[in-house]
């Protein structure tokens, strides 16, 4: 096998470690370069990523009852401290407050940008994974009047699709997809031999809501996203920003 280096007995765990973000930077960049060239290893990597993702989605399964939560919260609530050395505390309070606020802001900003990145890279993965699949779409039709009703009962909302006559876009079909455990519609359009994915989710999950609106360039894909009628739209593809914008406009006006 050509990829003895990565799949051989000595290093079978390397790819997994790489995908878990645990490979040291030097090795990671070598393996990363290899993945871009070797179709077999890339397919392996994709499969492993999909397994990771499905475990991640399946694993977030249980939530505690509010009563139980408040019982625990009460049991660990900090008791007010005794007033020893309150002079010192009075001085310390504004400084501490400032520190906490700035830490909270930093933390929030960092977390938001990390989360946004995660949403985009997840969407890019969904897009690539669908195109790499033997059956990219589950409902194959260029007719929006066939595709739209197909989603009925499969996802908890409804949406409108644009009339494409007079545009360069063709509808290829759709499939049900998940982002952060929220079901949504994944539509695939074609323009000049390029596929573009349109994702539609309910705008309530904090994951989907966290990506700020507007065009973005994520992982060499162009992404446009916006909220409309309580739905969150993402348009992802490797075509130019103008085409993404054109399709976005068609979708926005489809009402």
């Amino acid at each position, binding site marked *: 096998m050509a990829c003895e280096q990565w799949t051989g007995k000595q290093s079978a765990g390397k790819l997994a470690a790489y995908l878990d973000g645990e490979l040291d930077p030097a090795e990671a960049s070598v393996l990363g370069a290899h993945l871009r060239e070797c179709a077999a290893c890339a397919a392996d990597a994709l*499969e492993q990523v999909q*397994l990771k993702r*499905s*475990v991640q989605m399946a694993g977030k399964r249980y939530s505690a009852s509010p009563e139980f939560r408040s019982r*625990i919260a009460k049991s660990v609530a*900090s008791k007010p401290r005794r007033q020893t050395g309150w002079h010192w505390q009075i001085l310390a309070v504004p400084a501490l407050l400032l520190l906490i606020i700035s830490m909270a802001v930093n933390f929030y900003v960092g977390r938001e940008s990390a989360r946004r990145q995660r949403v985009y890279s997840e969407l890019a993965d969904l897009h690539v994974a669908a195109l790499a699949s033997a059956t990219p779409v589950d409902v194959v039709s260029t007719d929006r009047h066939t595709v739209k009703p197909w989603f009925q009962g499969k996802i908890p909302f409804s949406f409108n699709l644009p009339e494409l006559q007079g545009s360069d876009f063709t509808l290829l079909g759709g499939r049900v997809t998940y982002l952060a455990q929220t079901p949504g519609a994944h539509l695939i359009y074609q323009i000049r031999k390029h596929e573009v994915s349109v994702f539609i989710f309910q705008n309530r999950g904090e994951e989907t809501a966290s990506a700020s609106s507007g065009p973005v360039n994520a992982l060499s894909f162009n992404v446009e996203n916006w909220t409309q009628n309580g739905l969150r739209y993402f348009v992802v593809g490797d075509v130019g920003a103008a085409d993404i914008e054109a399709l976005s406009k068609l979708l926005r006006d489809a009402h």
Partner: protein
Amino acid sequence: MKVPEESVSAATFEELAMPLFDQLYNFARWLTHDTAEAEDLVQETYAKALRGFSSFQQGTNFRAWIYRILRNSFLSSRTGLRTMVTIDGEADENLLPAENTTPERILIEQADRETVQQALADLPVPFREILLLCEVEEMSYQEIAETLAIPIGTVMSRLFRARKALRDLLREKIKGGRHGV
């Protein structure tokens, strides 16, 4: 009781522990397969952690520390004693087999969320817990090693075997229960 001055500005137990509540409950529920038992386990964990908080070193990994308490409590519970099986050949880090990992993309794609949940639930506890820590909690190998009190090499080999076991189960479930969805 006198509070040492430096700990006044350090995070309180509540500040550190409550943000982890949902994750800890989810993890406990996966371990116990039972709501009441999961609640008992989480409650016991918080009580023990609060009592032992003075021995926790500020600045070290609180998450790994409290997960470890939860897991140890589980292991000493009746269900825990029953379900924790030892895994053969664990210490052998070179066991990662050179078998061809055939691309099973299609397989995983066919596995819906429910099937994956069933498969996860069917896994032996050591496999289930390490997959949850790695994929759901997104812990680093180092954190997993601290939580499970095992060396990093064992983390890697156990993860490898857990993933393989999960794949095998999924394959079985998909082939066995192929239904016309």
